[in-house]
């Protein structure tokens, strides 16, 4: 699935629009990765260019998207690290690395999507 551009935000910490979504400053520009399947995004404010995978557990992942998602799906279903590695066909260390990234992402995602604090400008729903 492809997220609409409004769901992305500039990932450059030096950019004034860093972390702000739906500001109209981003646009898709080109592709990267094996078989050029990963969309690249450009920020018009700071001219930074980054992958659509930046800020997700799939960042810097050399596995195919389907395989990476399969690893996380197996973990979510209660498979252990080693059994996930055997079932998906990847190393157990790869599974552990993906679990670490998924945990970081889940923490950030929970903070964003389940934020009700009135001092927080983010909406409770995306």
């Amino acid at each position, binding site marked *: 699935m492809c997220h609409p551009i409004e*769901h992305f935000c500039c*990932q450059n910490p030096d950019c004034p629009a860093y972390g702000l979504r739906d500001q109209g400053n981003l646009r898709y520009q080109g592709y990267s990765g094996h078989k050029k399947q990963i969309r690249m995004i450009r920020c018009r404010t700071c001219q930074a260019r980054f992958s659509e995978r930046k*800020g997700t557990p799939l960042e810097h992942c050399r596995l195919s998207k389907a395989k990476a998602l399969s690893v996380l799906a197996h973990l*979510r279903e209660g498979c252990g690290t080693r059994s996930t590695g055997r079932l998906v066909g990847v190393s157990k260390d790869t599974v552990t690395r993906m679990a670490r990234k998924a945990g970081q992402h*889940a*923490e950030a995602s929970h903070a*964003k999507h*389940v934020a009700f604090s009135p001092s927080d400008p983010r909406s409770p729903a995306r």
Partner: protein
Amino acid sequence: MAKKEKHCDRDEVADNDKGDQWDHTAIDAESRLILSVIPGRRTLASCLALVQGVKDKTEGRTNLFLTSDEHASYETAIAKGYKVPESDATDKPVDEATQSEDNLPSDLCYATVRKTRKQGRVIEVVTALVVGVISLLARYLKRSSVSDTINTSFVERQNGTDRCQNSRKKRKTYGFSKKLDVHQAMTYFTLYRYNFCWPVRTLTVQNGLQKMKRTPAMAAGLTDHIWSIEEWVTYPMIMGSQ
């Protein structure tokens, strides 16, 4: 974590991260939404972090009914977390003061549940009202659409679900956690993903002629559909490491 608590030497630095790890979980009983999770040792610091998490996610509202087990740190954490500052209390007229004797908001209610077991079976359940008054408790129980008793059933049921979804928490297997950071990461991943991706059977509603499955996030009004694992994972975030 890594080895059993009874085998850990607390004077050994190497055993600091080993032994028992608890999931301090706050759940909204009506929507089953997990508000906050603090994996760690069963200390006051963990309870304080959990109460602060709940306070943040509920906009600092105090008209809440909280229940927990009888772990003493929860009471201390709630007393510290919801304590009304002295300056706020003195600014208000006496008749409008919203605080009790312990400087806690008068509309906050906290009760505990103690279960006595014999040969693994619960034989007695004792509830106690710790903060608040009986009339307020009765009002909150009447307001609740899911339960009319003081209980911790919802979080206990969620713990059961989590044990099935996270292989590290399955009993009597070799899949237990060996490293603390991976354990915490998996806890966050399984519990927070549950909010958006896991339809809860008892949240199903009748939508016309069809039954509509709902996730806790849908019940809480945070989203309008069940997220797939792909949608959850590929949603870009600003992560701490970046």
